[in-house]
């Protein structure tokens, strides 16, 4: 379910690309520091977006050089303080719940792999969940509701996407100032809605081949790409209008790139079947 909320690299400024890379490595470093080496595997673009969105952009970005355990090279890491810790914990919680889902749904090989990884994540998850119990509860209720109504063909696609979207809105910290909180919630609701629908659309081909139920093809009314495209564009319009209401920060350029260029690029790639979850890009574009 992860990895869709990414920037469109060719349109990022050089300084923004550096900052985005630093944010990516910084989040990985935070997960490593707080939860250990193995949970670093939960790192996903989506949580980098969440960090950059929720962090206080009025403070100048603070970076430091850290050693990467994967490449053994020194990398520039962005430290967003409490927001980094928060995004790292949310990533661990969400990844753990996703693994539990996989254990319930997948076939033997994938189920065993999910079980093993869930086992290694268990300690990190317990720690993250005790720190942020509200988000853990939201994740559990929303995902169980989702798996309950996913099999019911009479439920509209919007109801399914709503479950996942509400889960993302739970990521907005309670302490946020009310009007700012509303903006974040609207933005994350529509990003969540986009991610759910695009993930379901991405799985259509493999689900059909494996005779598995799919959120889009299992609906009562037939949903074609034109209808999906229109509804996704509307979601991105609303998410964009919410982003414009936030004050200008160091990260605005990256966030705009993700919403206005990155997500539409992901959408068209998923629609024509060229989307690659683990992109093998050229050396200059590669995110290390």
């Amino acid at each position, binding site marked *: 379910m992860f990895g869709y909320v990414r920037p469109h690299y060719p*349109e990022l400024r050089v300084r923004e690309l550096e900052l985005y890379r630093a944010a990516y490595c910084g989040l990985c470093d935070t997960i490593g520091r707080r939860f250990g080496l193995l949970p670093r595997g939960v790192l996903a673009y989506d949580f980098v977006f969440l960090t950059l969105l929720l962090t206080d952009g009025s403070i100048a970005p603070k970076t430091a050089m850290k050693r990467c355990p994967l490449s053994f090279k020194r990398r520039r890491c962005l430290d967003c303080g409490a927001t980094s810790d928060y995004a790292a914990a949310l990533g661990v919680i969400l990844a753990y719940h996703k693994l539990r889902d996989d254990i319930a749904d997948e076939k033997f090989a994938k189920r065993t792999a999910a079980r093993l990884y869930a086992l290694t994540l268990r300690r990190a998850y317990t720690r993250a969940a005790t720190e942020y119990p509200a988000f853990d509860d939201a994740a559990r209720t929303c995902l169980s509701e989702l798996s309950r109504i996913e099999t019911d063909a009479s439920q509209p696609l919007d109801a399914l996407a709503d479950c996942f979207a509400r889960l993302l809105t739970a990521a907005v910290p309670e302490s946020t100032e009310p009007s700012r909180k509303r903006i974040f919630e609207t933005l994350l609701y529509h990003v969540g809605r986009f991610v759910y629908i695009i993930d379901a659309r991405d799985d259509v081909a493999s689900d059909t081949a494996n005779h598995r139920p799919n959120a889009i093809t299992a609906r009562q009314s037939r949903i074609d790409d034109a209808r999906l495209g229109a509804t996704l564009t509307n979601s991105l319009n609303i998410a964009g209008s919410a982003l414009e209401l936030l004050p200008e920060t160091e990260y605005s350029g990256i966030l705009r790139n993700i919403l206005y260029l990155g997500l539409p690029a992901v959408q068209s790639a998923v629609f024509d079947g060229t989307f690659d979850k683990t992109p093998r890009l050229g050396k200059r574009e590669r995110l290390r």
Partner: protein
Amino acid sequence: MSDPYAVLGLTHGASEEEVKKAYRDLARRYHPDNYHDNPLADLAQEKMKEINEAYDAITKGGASSGYGSGGSAYASQSQAGGAEFSVVRSAINSGDLGMAERILQQTANRNAEWYFLMGSVYFRRGWLDEAVQYYTIACEQEPANAEYRSALNYVTAGNTTYRPQGFGAAPRRQGECDMCDVCTAMACANMCCRC
């Protein structure tokens, strides 16, 4: 009131041209058209008011000029519908979607307006695909109604709303060609033609 130059994102001593440009850009960004039926429309309206005030304070225009901040979408509509529907409209405007939906569910008279209002509730909630279905039924039942038609057109057009400069067009994909490519090809072809 806060510093009008800061509101427009300028420093003191900015020229008239710069003020106009900044104002125009911000007014385009927070224009009510971009926040049509949007749950954040009130925040955009506030921003718009701030910008208008700042612009007036700098240009010393006094009376409010420039773009209007736009009324709410439903208040101004005079409708033939019953008292129930006007309650629903005001509930939608005030953001009380739960109440609006409850009243609509209890209504037995499911005419075009009912479908339209149900669509509006879904749109505000973010169930955009359902909203399209309901607007479509409303338009089928009353094809002449401009309000229903414009709501349906808005959600099915699939147009992107305001984008800041540099984020306008969808990213260019490999293999596509634009005007520059055509010009370059012509120039190259021209070189081959010379003898």
